[in-house]
């Protein structure tokens, strides 16, 4: 008898989102902030798949596919930006990227 319900999956998904967000807030290294974003996306993916499975609908799964695609592109562009910035400012810390304020 299976005791795992969809709620378990959902709770897990949201915990992942929360951890990702926590990382986004407390890390100053932009690389790690990007990773935290990935973690949040993963949490969302889990939730989507759960709904897809439960609702007997493939749409959620296909959305996960698209989210992966977008995430891959986002990481590529984000990292390229980071490299470009690093060449100028010799730093990957977000504190050093507050040019708009000053």
């Amino acid at each position, binding site marked *: 008898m299976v005791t795992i319900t969809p709620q378990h999956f959902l709770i897990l998904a949201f915990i992942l989102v929360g951890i990702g*967000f926590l990382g*986004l*807030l*407390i890390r*100053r290294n932009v690389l790690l*902030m990007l990773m935290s974003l990935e973690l949040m996306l993963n949490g969302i993916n889990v939730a989507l798949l759960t709904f897809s499975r439960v609702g007997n609908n493939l749409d959620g799964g296909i959305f996960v596919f698209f989210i992966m695609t977008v995430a891959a592109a986002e990481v590529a562009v984000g990292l390229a930006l980071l490299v470009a910035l690093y060449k100028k400012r010799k730093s990957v810390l*977000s*504190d050093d*990227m*507050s040019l*708009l*304020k*000053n």
Partner: protein
Amino acid sequence: MINYALSMLFLPLLSAMVTLFFLRKNGNLASLLSVFTAGGILVLALLVIFGNEEDVLAWDTSWFAMAGWELRFGFLIDAPARLLLFVVAFVGFLIHVFSLGYMENDPARPRYFGGLSLFMFSMLGITLADNLIMLFVFWELVGFSSYLLIAHYFNTEEASLASRKAFIVNRVGDFGFLIGIILTYWTYGTVNLSELADLADFSPSLATTTLCLALACGFIGKSAQFPLHVWLPDAMAGPTPVSALIHAATMVAAGVYLLLRIDFLFTDQALVLIAFVGAGMGLYAGFCALVQKDIKKVLAYSTLSQLGYMAAAFGIGAPGLALFHLTTHAFFKALMFLGSGSVIHACHHEQNIFNYGGLRKRMPITAITFLIGVLAISGVNFFSGYFSKDAILLWSYNFNMPVFVILYAGAILTSVYMFRLYFITFEGQPRSHNSSDAKENSILMTGPLMVLAILSILGGYFSLYPERLSSYLSPDLSVFSELPNHMWMVVLGTSAWIIGLLFAWSFFGKVEDETDPLAKRYPAFFELCQSKLFFDEIYRFYVDKIQDPIARFIEVLELLLISGLMVRGSAGLAALFSMLAKVCYVGKIHSYSLWFILGTLGFLIYSLGLFE
């Protein structure tokens, strides 16, 4: 036919635009263009008047429409419009020709002739307009072009003040006019003149005295009637041909024309009021004219007085006679103004009549034509003024005795001050170098004088008018011819001008020096007349002591409430918000993502339904 009318209306506008954009430096070309435009208007006007047989030519098109309300642009060329159209086009053309001579040495000719063309455009618009709103638009346009032309010599203090005065005083009247138009629309649901006529016929009970008096405010402002008469004498600061065209022959008469256009709206009380205001103006302006030293101001006051006659004629129920007098007045008053222009031009812009004298020998054509004008306005038998003025007098004798008494006194005064003007200016010996050196002007200036002189004689012979022009006058004139007491009126009218002539001769026949003989003999009376019954002073007092404090009070309110509270206040509020927002703007990506998530949280919590 409509194409003729349309091109006639827009030809002067085109000419004014061309002058404005291309000919601002080229005085000769600009003046020629303007004169040819005036000639074109005359030809087209004759085509419009005589080119077809229809009694009423109506045409309109949509001007603009919004939200179920439409403003139409249209022409209503009926009998009074035809006559005024003829007068405007004809007198306008003659004055354009005269201006060629009068303004030949003026450096600002393009501005002057552009203004004249603009004026012709606006005046034709008033003449042809078929609804009150369109009429009002052109009404304002004549006011504006009059302002432009009065201020032609804008570097003199007098002209700039006078132009402003004319503009502001006209605003007062036009405000009433605008209210009248709104009331009309409110009451009748239309502003179209022919529809209004039908409606007023159908349900006479709709007409109210308030409504027609509000509309008459437009007349009072534009025709310079009591209590808004103060602007016209000052408007003489403009060039003399302008005074002749705008402030004597056409624009001021447009007020009377407005009354004719809407006469079906008037109630009996309003008519009586207008009759008395007009008659009173006829007498009052006569007294003022009696003591003026400036040749143009004498003529200006006499214009006021004659406009009073027209208003009185309208008030006692004879709009046809009012238009008749308007026509003859346009001829002889334009004649006299142009004559005075000729004198002023010859005497090097000297305008004080006591510095003239003996001009008859030096300027015979001007003198004779001017004398014809004087005879016409004084109502000397068989000149044009005799027919139109005595018709009004007889009508009032039979229908309204008090008005007749006032008008008759005014008629005697008219003859006194007109002959005074003639004697002082043209008879006796020259009293200054300017007048002893004077020479007759060129044909450009005397030509229009002679044409107008002929018209001033013939203009009163009603039967000479073509049927197309006279159809509006005929009903009133046929009633007039059946009135009793004709012979009695001939005696009275003749005695009026003879009394005036004798008075003038005894007082002003021999003027030796520069003081007014009247001032020597009756100084108190002279002073009273010269004060013009203190109207300017009363208005000055009103503006200074009553209007200005109110304006200052409102200004303080405006500073406090609008500028202080609303404008600055809203700016301050925005600044306050920006200060709050700046606190959140710390320049760290972490704080921004925090705000972002908090916002998302807000939405999520809302979707939980916790707030409901």
